[in-house]
Each structure stands twice: as structure tokens, then as C-alpha cells.
């Protein structure tokens, strides 16, 4: 297992992606799965950066491991309790006029992973995703 702790700021995204990519490359992860995981990492990290610490700054911890051909990524922050999985899925059949800008991030995370699990423990948001690689 490897972990990275960074300030939860959107401009740290490149650093987070580089950390995840170097782990996945060492696992010989197929390019397609790697891009799908990168997408999930961006959506989750940027969500934390934008919403977890509204009046203050804090950190996000990203853990990554691989076992039996499955990548497991965990995102931990000590910000406002927030379960993104409670959010209603956007209606992707609406017309352009009816559609709202936003809400697609967590939808893409669900679509590009095998499992997504959220819990709040010890004052922290813990979001875990898994995906076969």
C-alpha cells in the first residue's frame, strides 16, 4: 500500500494523478483502466478540494493498493461529513435545455469502478473505490 497526503486544493491534482499513475504503471495496469481510474481520482479529489473545507484548509489522503488484480483506492479527508453516494444520479436522458451543469462527477465514478463505498469514521470521510486492472 502506498499513500500520499496533500493539501486539499484543486491545483494539487497533477501531483495526485502522478502518484496514482506511477503506482498503476508499476502494476502494469492496462492503459484504458488507468485512464478510467485517473478520471475517478480527479472527480473525487476535486470534490474534496471544492467542498470538504469551506472556511478553512485541510488535507486529503489518498491510499492505493493492488491485490489479486484489483486496484483499491481510498480517499480520506477530515472536512464536512459528506456522502457523495447519497446524491441523486443525474438524468442523462434529458434534453440539453433541461440539463443542469454539474452533478456528473460522481456518476462517472460509479460508471468507471466496480465498487464504491463511503463511510464516516473517527471524524473523517472515507471513500473507497475498487476496480479490476
Amino acid at each position, binding site marked *: 500500500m502506498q499513500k500520499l497526503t496533500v493539501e486539499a486544493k*484543486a491545483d494539487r491534482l497533477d501531483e495526485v494523478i502522478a502518484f496514482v499513475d506511477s503506482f498503476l504503471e508499476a502494476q502494469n495496469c492496462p492503459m484504458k483502466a488507468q485512464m478510467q481510474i485517473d*478520471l475517478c481520482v*480527479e472527480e473525487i479529489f476535486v470534490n474534496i478540494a471544492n467542498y470538504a473545507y469551506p472556511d478553512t484548509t485541510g488535507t486529503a489522503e489518498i491510499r492505493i493498493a493492488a491485490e489479486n488484480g484489483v486496484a483499491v483506492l481510498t480517499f480520506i479527508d477530515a472536512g464536512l461529513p459528506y456522502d457523495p453516494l447519497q446524491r441523486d444520479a*443525474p438524468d442523462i436522458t434529458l434534453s*440539453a435545455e433541461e*440539463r443542469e*451543469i454539474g452533478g*456528473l462527477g460522481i*456518476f462517472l465514478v460509479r*460508471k468507471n469502478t466496480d465498487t464504491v463505498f463511503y463511510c464516516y469514521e473517527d471524524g473523517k470521510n472515507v471513500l473507497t473505490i475498487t476496480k479490476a486492472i
Partner: protein
Amino acid sequence: MNIATEKENGTLTIMLSGKLDSTSAPELEKALTEQADGVTSLVFDLGELSYTSSAGLRVFLKARKMMRSRDDVRLIHTAPSVLEVLEMTGFTEIMTVEAAE
């Protein structure tokens, strides 16, 4: 990400290369807003674009809302990795999306 634009007779063509993510999407939004005057048709040439996240989708939807119909927004030369995200989110239904050859 790199952005190049070209405007001709009401058609604005925006060529994107690299990754369209939450860092680069605001640049695209800015380019779009700055040049939208008098534009009735939008073409995004995605030939060199390898990635988009929801931040990019937001800008495409905004662009679509600025135009009248799905035929007025065309995404061309779309790579498989980008096409997959557009299909997954139903964006291929609300704008014209053409895959790379």
C-alpha cells in the same frame, strides 16, 4: 492542454489538444465566452484530445446551451477514450459527436 481557435462566417472552431480536466477546463470556458459573439455554429476538434472529465463536460454542455440545436455543436475526430465518456453521460444524444477515423 492547448487551445487554438478559428472563426469564420459564424462558425467558431476550437481545436483542443492534451487533457481537458478541472485545471484546463476554465481556459476553454474563457476562450468560448470571449469568442461566442455572433457565433451560430460551434466545432470542437478533439483530434489531439486524450481525456475529459466532468469539468470538460460542463463546458461542452454550456456551449450546447449557447446554441440552438444539437446540429449546431459538433465534436469531431473524437478519440475512443473521450467518446466513451460522452456516450456514458448521454452527451452523444444532445450534440453531434463524430468519432476519429
